[in-house]
């Protein structure tokens, strides 16, 4: 049984998250997954960008740094390449990862670098006060969509899959045991792994959209979710408005980026050797 406290910087509590927020629940699942995988605190880095998700690594006792909005994956790429022996995780949000950092997400997935990304999808820019994000369902009310949103969200897991991400999974804060299991699998996976966790932001999304209490929002997640197995037999019309949870992609046919890089280095050295 994981003692979550062992991984928390006690002097950094209380955290900044609002009552009913999913971040703490997901942070707990992440810690239990890290513990289950046998990662050590000294050998683990947790890199974040900006937003509520960026505060994961304030309280978590790993090698931590909070970088620029949307850029955590770029910083993590440079870091991992120079510290390939370390386990590197990124905690990010839907605005951070699928909005301002969307281009980095595509290409980090494409490179298949051995990072584990946990994207907390609360469907809103929470920290800045509830502006709509690329993941906000249509139609919704947000502080920048006082009458209604007028944009469609997209399926970020499909994006990561198309870009070449070799491990892609989705869960919710309601299904927290599944979330933990998927993060564990993601950490163990060699290559780019991405776990989207649908979360609730009662303060800045739920309240405006009359979604009730945090409990009601969690029950809504439960109601909307279907497993990957169930989804197989469902039509696109039936899947409309559903959250498909479980392992969406698990490929082992591509080497992780640092191995492919080292293959190139061997070729380069051999070629140079020929010339000498």
């Amino acid at each position, binding site marked *: 049984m994981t003692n979550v406290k062992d991984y928390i910087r006690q002097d950094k509590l209380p955290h900044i998250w609002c009552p009913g927020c999913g971040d703490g629940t997901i942070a707990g699942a992440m810690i239990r997954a890290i513990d289950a995988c046998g990662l050590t605190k000294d050998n683990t880095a947790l890199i974040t960008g900006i937003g509520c998700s960026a505060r994961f690594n304030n309280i978590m006792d790993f090698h*931590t740094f909070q970088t620029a909005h949307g850029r955590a994956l770029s910083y993590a790429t440079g870091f991992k390449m120079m510290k390939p022996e370390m386990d590197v995780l990124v905690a990010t949000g839907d605005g951070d990862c699928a909005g301002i950092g969307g281009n980095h997400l595509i*290409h980090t997935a494409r490179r298949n670098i051995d990072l584990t990304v946990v994207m907390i999808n609360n469907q809103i820019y929470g920290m800045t006060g509830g502006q709509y994000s690329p993941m906000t369902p249509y139609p919704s009310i947000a502080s920048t969509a006082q009458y209604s949103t007028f944009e469609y969200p997209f399926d970020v897991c499909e994006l990561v899959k198309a870009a070449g991400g070799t491990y892609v999974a989705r869960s919710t804060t309601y299904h927290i045991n599944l979330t933990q299991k998927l993060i564990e699998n993601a950490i163990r996976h060699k290559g780019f792994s991405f776990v989207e966790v649908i979360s609730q932001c009662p303060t800045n999304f739920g309240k405006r959209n009359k979604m009730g209490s945090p409990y009601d929002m969690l029950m809504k997640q439960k109601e909307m979710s279907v497993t990957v197995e169930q989804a197989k037999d469902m039509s696109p019309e039936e899947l409309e408005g559903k959250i498909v949870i479980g392992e969406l992609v698990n490929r082992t046919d591509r080497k992780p980026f640092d191995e492919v890089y080292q293959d190139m280095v061997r070729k380069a050295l051999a070629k140079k050797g020929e010339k000498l």
Partner: protein
Amino acid sequence: MSNTTVRFMQGNEALVEGALVAGARFFAGYPITPASEITEGMSARLPLVGGVFLQMEDEIASMGAAIGASMAGAKCLTATSGPGFSLKQEGIGIASMMEIPVVIVDVMRGGPASGMSTLPSQMDVMQARWGCHGDHPIIVLSPATVTECYELAIKAFNLAELIRQPVIILSDAIVGHLRERIELPDPSTVKIINRKMTDKPPEEYAPFEAGEDDVPFFAERGTAYRYHMCSNVHTEKGFPADTNNAVAAKLITRLHRKLDNYADEITCYKFFGAEDYDVLITAYGCVTRAARDAAKALNAEGRKVGVLQLQSLWPFPKAVVAEYAAKARKVLMPEINLGQLIDQVRLATDRPVEGLNRCDGAEIRPEQIIEKVREM
């Protein structure tokens, strides 16, 4: 020196050589004219010396990857030109605030916007100083020759490591692309500075607790030194304190004081021409070359002209300019822009300072300078 190698080389290539000798082992870049030879050179060289070369998806990512790799302990380089330099500003601010050594090359081309991608300019001089938001300190060096591309690359890395600070090399399309003879010294004779590491135990270590020189100490990642860094105003322990006025004042003033403490190490310049000059030409980058030729011709015809080449542009070497300008009757500041650094020269001296400018993508030629000096 028997171990000196003589080569015929491009400015961008010499910059690659200098960076490698300085210890650069990570490069992240994005294709852009006229800086691509640096990126290409690094892609050929780094895999052979145990380094990592990455071509990233955009300029922002290449800046981020370089900072991330430096956080892991590597000496990192990235290179770009105007449009990319604009995009890198976010990361330059992060590197200033988080005190991450990194060297950024901007091979200047004509602007604004996409401008003139193959033609030279010096239009990014003020952007190099104030391109990113906030009161951040910056070091900017500017080479005028192929040899200086090599030397200033080494100096840039040494300063970055010494002061934990992003350092910008402002090259230009002329200096980057021209080919000259260069004498490369034996690398073992080159002075290399590496970042200071803490000697405190992990439990006492604070990542932003500075030494007497106001520069904090690094600790190796992947060890028991588990510490936090953030880009907000932060405490010495590295945690956000972005509503704390006292912490903000202490941090931001220290960031600037670091550069003051090392002003002598940063400041570099050269003087050419007549010691008893009547007109002083202040120049930097490729314009230095035209200024030297002009001074030579003018001095041969009996005029007294000196050239002060500024190799360090920011922090602006005000005292040096003041000292040299004081001996002149008039000062001329030629620049391939509509007058950017000239204001700094004017602030440094009470001598009349005249500009000679162009913004058409062409170089300033010696004849133009000669003609101008004759009128002065």
